[in-house]
């Protein structure tokens, strides 16, 4: 059974990766009737001096680590707060808290887009109503505010995932461990830090790795909310690659970007795996 599996993997995973590598060393524009030309490392050299690539990479880092970090903390706080609550009422609350995770990304994007609207948006209405701001703010159309605004939508959708994951882990901690800590009069913070967090470590590592990969590749939310704008302020790698490949049809250059992107994720995943192994 090993050989068929290897064959399937070679076709489904190997071929696209190898073909992307081949394209990345070619000058290949779909609009050009002439065949693709081998250019060696030229695409990679151009990437090094491409200001938009570096800005997109920086935006990707901010969006990914910012969103995952904050969503993890919120999810953890929610899980710890809800841990000892029981009864039917709280089951309903738990279910409601998980709802944002079930909402399709595009729906989340449009929902927040309308909430952020300068005219008629509920966020501006609330903030002006409470006297926090004098005039409505164009959240998605101010370069300095667009990225945090998109991240808020992303965190809203992602935090329930961590809540769900960590709630399940907390429920799995042996009762004896908690009881003996209580007998020793362990304080709340100490209980969390010394008893619960070690149990949560691996799920947190796996969950955050999954979410980092998902956010690194998150296209729908950003595209539907800002299309990478204003300017390049929310342009992430995936947005930039999309524009290069499917608006400019520069498949060679887009493939080179894709190879670098894949390498970054691979290095990241390896680091995580190493962290998981060290116990």
């Amino acid at each position, binding site marked *: 059974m090993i050989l068929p599996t290897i064959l399937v993997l070679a076709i489904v995973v190997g071929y696209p990766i190898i073909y992307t590598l081949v394209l990345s060393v070619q000058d290949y524009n*779909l609009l050009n*009737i002439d065949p693709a030309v081998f250019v060696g490392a030229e695409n990679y050299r151009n990437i090094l001096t491409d200001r938009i690539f570096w800005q997109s990479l920086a935006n990707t880092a901010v969006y990914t680590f910012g969103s995952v970090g904050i969503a993890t903390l919120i999810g953890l706080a929610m899980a710890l707060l809800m841990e000892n609550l029981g009864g039917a009422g709280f089951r309903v609350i738990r279910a409601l808290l998980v709802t944002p995770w079930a909402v399709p990304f595009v729906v989340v994007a449009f929902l927040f887009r309308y909430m952020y609207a300068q005219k008629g948006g509920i966020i501006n209405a609330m903030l002006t109503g409470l006297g926090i701001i004098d005039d409505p703010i164009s959240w998605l159309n*101010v370069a300095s505010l667009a990225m945090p605004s998109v991240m808020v939508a992303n965190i809203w959708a992602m935090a329930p995932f961590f809540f769900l994951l960590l709630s399940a882990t907390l429920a799995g901690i042996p009762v004896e461990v908690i009881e003996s800590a209580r007998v020793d009069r362990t304080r709340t913070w100490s209980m969390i830090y010394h008893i619960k967090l070690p149990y949560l470590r691996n799920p947190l590592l796996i969950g955050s790795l999954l979410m980092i990969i998902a956010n690194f590749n998150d296209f729908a939310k950003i595209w539907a909310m*800002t299309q990478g*704008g204003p*300017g390049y302020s929310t342009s992430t790698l995936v947005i930039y690659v999309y524009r290069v490949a499917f608006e*400019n049809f520069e498949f060679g250059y887009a493939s080179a970007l894709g190879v670098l992107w894949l390498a970054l994720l691979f290095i990241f995943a390896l680091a995580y795996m190493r962290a998981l192994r060290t116990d």
Partner: protein
Amino acid sequence: MFGFSKHEHLFGMAAASLLALAATTAHAQSGKITLTFANWASAEGATRPGIEKVIADFEAANPNVKINSEAISFSEIARQLVLRVRSGNPPDVAQVAGNDTILVATTGGVEPLDAYVGTEFKSTLKPDALNGLTVDGKLIALPWNQAPAGLWYNKTILKQAGLDPDNPPATIDALMAAMAAIKKSHPDVIPLGVDTTNRAFSMSSNWPWMRTFGAKPIGADATGATSKEMKAYLSWMREIAQKGYIDPGRKIGEFRPLIAQGKVAFLWDQVLVQGVIQSTNKMSDADFYKTYGVTVMPAGPSGKPASFEGGHQLVMFANSKNKDAAWAFMKYLATSPEAIRNYTVSYNASLPPLANVTDAPLRAQLDTPIFNAYRDKIIPTLTPQPYGAKFAAAATAVMAGVQEAVTGTKPIDDIAQSIQEQLDRR
């Protein structure tokens, strides 16, 4: 699900497959020609009934032809067509517009139409409708309709703001004064609707504004993004954003329902807006003409108003096995009185490409204040666009700069320099 056994399920699937095969074989044996028509007209609710009727009428008049209409969104169609040409499976005919028309032609997969059009038929078309459709000396598309952009205005708002509704602003200075008055009298109204999104269409839409400032950042005889004219345009965009005269980040389509609701005073948009307004607010023709007007772009420092042609074209693909039938279909869509009446004018609210309309009822249908303003005043201000394989990449760079000017505080000189750097990379 329905309690079928595994054998019954398999039998059912086999029977369905056989029926489908039989139907396909029968269709092929009947000698019917099937044309594939990729278009966004059938993808949009507003135009779907019109295009479906026109296709049905064509099929009724040509019983040997079956049109297989493929609905593809406007934003997606160029990508789909380019990829399909390169994959060797393009449709027979496609609806295209703007830079997409040239992009699709650049792939080399489009059939030149010169042999089909001929001198006599060509003389029935408006010369300006054919502008920009010749690539390497070959006609690559047939104009389906004309939909240039003009400055729409709400007469009621102008009047309430103390402005003369019969004399819309003719210069940028007059426009600024009018917008200041509207902002003061109607704080909740968007004084000017312009598309500031980052896409090729937005670049086309903003190109006339750049040109009226004398800027030409790309194309033949380009003066670049760092010219004083381009900086003047970017500075003006920043000024109207900072004064709250525009609502940044909206696609042009998002302003259309707003102008229908009286929430936009001026709108830089195409002729088809009338249809959207009336379908939104259910205004009668008489009330519409009393409330809305359209005029040429207010002239900037260059002293010349400008416009862009946002009309749609039809292309035939070289791979088509039924080119004569495809041409007949294209010709019918663009020039037959029935198709013009049932789709171009009524559903698309745009102008036909015909130089002279001989059909009396159609001539009457086209004799409106809006159509006349577009035909007589706006079309003469049409400005060529620097379309081509590099236009989309250039549009991304320029419109990103426009967005930075409109939404940020970065110095205009730095933005212009940044745009130029991006243009030089392409």
